[in-house]
């Protein structure tokens, strides 16, 4: 049986929104890595760089799992856990940024 297609392409638009957000996170993570390694390599700075990379990977994993869930014909709503995890990665990135800037 063919599933009815949503004429508003809502799941596709939502999937692309996740992709855009991942891209924005990538830009922030690249800037974080640049900042972390700008002052010459030291243990603290390499660790900070690794933390930022891990946060980016975390966001990527959240986005990827949600994108996979959106492939369903009538995708379930976003769970607070997924939303919280995405926001947590963002906040943690900002905390790393503050630590690097100071």
């Amino acid at each position: 049986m063919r599933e009815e297609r949503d004429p508003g392409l809502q799941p596709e638009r939502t999937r692309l929104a996740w992709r855009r957000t991942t891209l924005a996170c990538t830009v922030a993570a690249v800037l974080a890595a640049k900042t972390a390694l700008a002052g010459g390599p030291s243990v603290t700075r390499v660790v900070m760089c690794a933390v930022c990379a891990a946060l980016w990977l975390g966001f990527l994993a959240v986005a990827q799992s949600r994108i996979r869930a959106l492939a369903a014909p009538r995708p379930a709503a976003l769970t607070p856990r997924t939303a919280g995890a995405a926001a947590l990665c963002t906040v943690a990135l900002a905390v790393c940024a503050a630590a690097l800037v100071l």
Partner: protein
Amino acid sequence: MTGFSAFSGFRRAVRLWFVPREIRAEGTTPDYRFSLANERTFLAWLRTALALIGGGFAVDQFLPDLRWGWRVGLALALLTTGVLCSLRAVNHWVRVERAMRRGEDLPVSRFPALLAVVVAVVAVAMAVVVLLGWEG
């Protein structure tokens, strides 16, 4: 809205972040397209937050001639705004989701106006600092 009701509303919302079943238990499930629209709004706010955080990094990296205080101050202002923006993104998403389930009006918020004012102030400060205080 008084400070107290804002606080208790905030506490209730934070509880909902961590007890997701409470959202499901309330009201009826809305049309999935409305939930997806709410999700996209959440993501748009998250992108705004990420852009602000990126801006914080950019101030630190690309204005090296600025005096330390100004550079760090502007970067921290942008980063703080980014954090607030992403926390608010989750909070607003939860509130909208709950309102849709209960069939209530969508929550109004003065956050967009506040954000606009903060971004304008930071932009003006940055322009002034870059033009006048280049050499510190």
